[in-house]
């Protein structure tokens, strides 16, 4: 397995073979499927029989289907509104919990709890909490609504549940970011008479720019993958009013047995993920950020 010492010394590093097991797993179950899904999008397949070539039929079908357009629109909406809700909340909570008092440490532990629950558990919990007959709606008249039954409200309920699940994670990122800001910056600002708000705007916010980029990237790319929560919470309904792209793909493929069309939708999903993260990486210099961490 190991090369003779002379050879190793000349190359100055360990053998590339050490990457093979990981690469094999990753290639077989991530890269190859990514290629196969493109091929499958050109085939007709019910999930059981043998796939048969059908050209661009799936694509014309998917692209002319108003449900797909709606799913894309809903996905964009979830992505944008989630970002608008989660970023300020976790930024402020992260800054707040970066302080050292004991009660803040207790708060941070409690904030963390939703991260431990599976999306299925969270969805079931929210379903019960929002039940118009037995949940909060009955206990607190102000909240008296059929939250999940209303096509106008359901998407915002989904976004709220997503925030409930993921704000703790992003709070954690911001908390760590704030703790790395040199204290001297705040000390000199305080001497200059800058108040808390000014310190936040002129020190905390600019110093956190890389954290904001990291968190936003994870949030935006992640919002393509909110499947489990929506599947269990609403199943896409009522009607199609919460049928986001990932769910649209699942229903098309595994409920309607049209794997070809589902594959076409999957290609759209994968392309969106790649374009989004490559674009964000370019724009923000993710590599710069990484090298900064190496130096730390």
């Amino acid at each position, binding site marked *: 397995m190991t090369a003779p010492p002379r050879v190793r010394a000349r190359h100055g*590093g360990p053998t590339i073979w050490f990457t093979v097991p990981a690469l094999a797993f990753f290639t077989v179950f991530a890269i190859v*499927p990514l290629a196969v899904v493109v091929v499958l999008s050109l085939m007709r397949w019910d999930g059981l029989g043998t796939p048969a070539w059908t050209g661009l039929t799936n694509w014309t079908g998917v692209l002319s289907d108003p449900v797909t357009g709606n799913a894309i629109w809903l996905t964009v909406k979830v992505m944008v509104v989630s970002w608008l809700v989660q970023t300020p909340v976790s930024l402020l*909570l992260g800054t707040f919990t970066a302080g050292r008092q004991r009660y803040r440490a207790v708060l941070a532990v409690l904030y963390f709890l939703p991260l431990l629950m599976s999306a299925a558990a969270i969805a079931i919990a929210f379903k019960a909490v929002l039940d118009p007959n037995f949940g909060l709606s009955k206990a607190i008249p102000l909240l008296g609504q059929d939250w999940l039954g209303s096509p106008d409200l359901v998407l915002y309920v989904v976004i709220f549940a997503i925030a409930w699940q993921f704000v703790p994670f992003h709070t954690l990122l911001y908390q*760590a970011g704030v703790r790395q800001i040199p204290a001297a910056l705040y000390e000199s600002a305080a001497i200059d008479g800058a108040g808390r708000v000014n310190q936040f705007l002129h020190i905390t916010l600019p110093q956190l720019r890389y954290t904001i980029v990291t968190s936003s990237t994870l949030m935006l790319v992640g919002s393509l993958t909110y499947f489990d929560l929506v599947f269990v919470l609403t199943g896409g309904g009522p009607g199609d009013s919460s049928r986001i792209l990932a769910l649209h793909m699942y229903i098309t493929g595994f409920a309607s047995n049209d794997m070809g069309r589902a594959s076409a939708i999957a290609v759209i999903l994968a392309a969106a993920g790649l374009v989004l993260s490559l674009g964000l990486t370019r724009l923000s210099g993710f590599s710069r950020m990484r090298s900064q961490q190496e130096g730390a």
Partner: protein
Amino acid sequence: MAVEATRHRSVHPTVVTAGRRRSGQRPNIVGAVGGFVWLAIIIVPLYYIVITSLRSQQGFYATNALAPPTDPTLANYQLVLQNEFLRYLANSVVVAGGTVVIAVAVSLMAAYAIVRGTGRAVRLVFAVFLLGLAIPLQATIVPIYYMITRIHMYDTLAALILPGVAFAIPLTVLILVNFLRDVPAELFESMRLDGAGNWRMLWSLALPLARPAVITVAVYDALNAWNGFLFPLILTQSPDNRVLPLALWSFQGQFTVNIPTVLAAVVLSTLPILALYIVGRRYLVTGLTAGFGR
């Protein structure tokens, strides 16, 4: 937690000084109010789940949803446990354990090679793994379903572990590489002069030094595998191979009118991971944030 966090992260020199910052300032009232509002948002659903899971069916229909149960009962928990809950728990343990052991082992090998290697091939491999962070799991599920059925692994626990490992690898490698890069090259060089091969250096130098990072990624990968829903939904079928999140979903179908029992299952499914969190908290929290950097 804060103190532990500082201790663990002392590799980053700036962290240590940050603690004194806020002393001598006016209390942050806006922050505190906002912090407690969010706390309420987190706590109210959790409180509702727990008290409802302790209600009897009749009590559930009769009382105010937020009032504590007048006649708390563990009958719902009993019912859940009688419905094969322990089997689903065991399945989840197997899947999470298998995924973590394989993912961390192959990722550590890869991370070692990436950190120690200099060639173009190594950089290319690393770039491929980073690309993996951008692939939505859902986009690959149809081909994975196709492959798993063709190799006759449909409806087995192994069918959940293999793709689970693949999707755990990118982030695991990234975090381990970031950590191992901080190990001075001289340590490796002096071991090499002593005649150590790559396996020895990996096993007796890289692994012990990277222990905090290894524990971090192990906990994080376990959390993901434990809570995974889509792969089990699509790649398994029989109750024998059901894992916890899927069991919750089927409990929901089975006990549609018995919300207290479904919520008892939710609580039960969260308890093991809560126990793990209490044990490994400081690694999870500090490691997660260190993995992404500033």
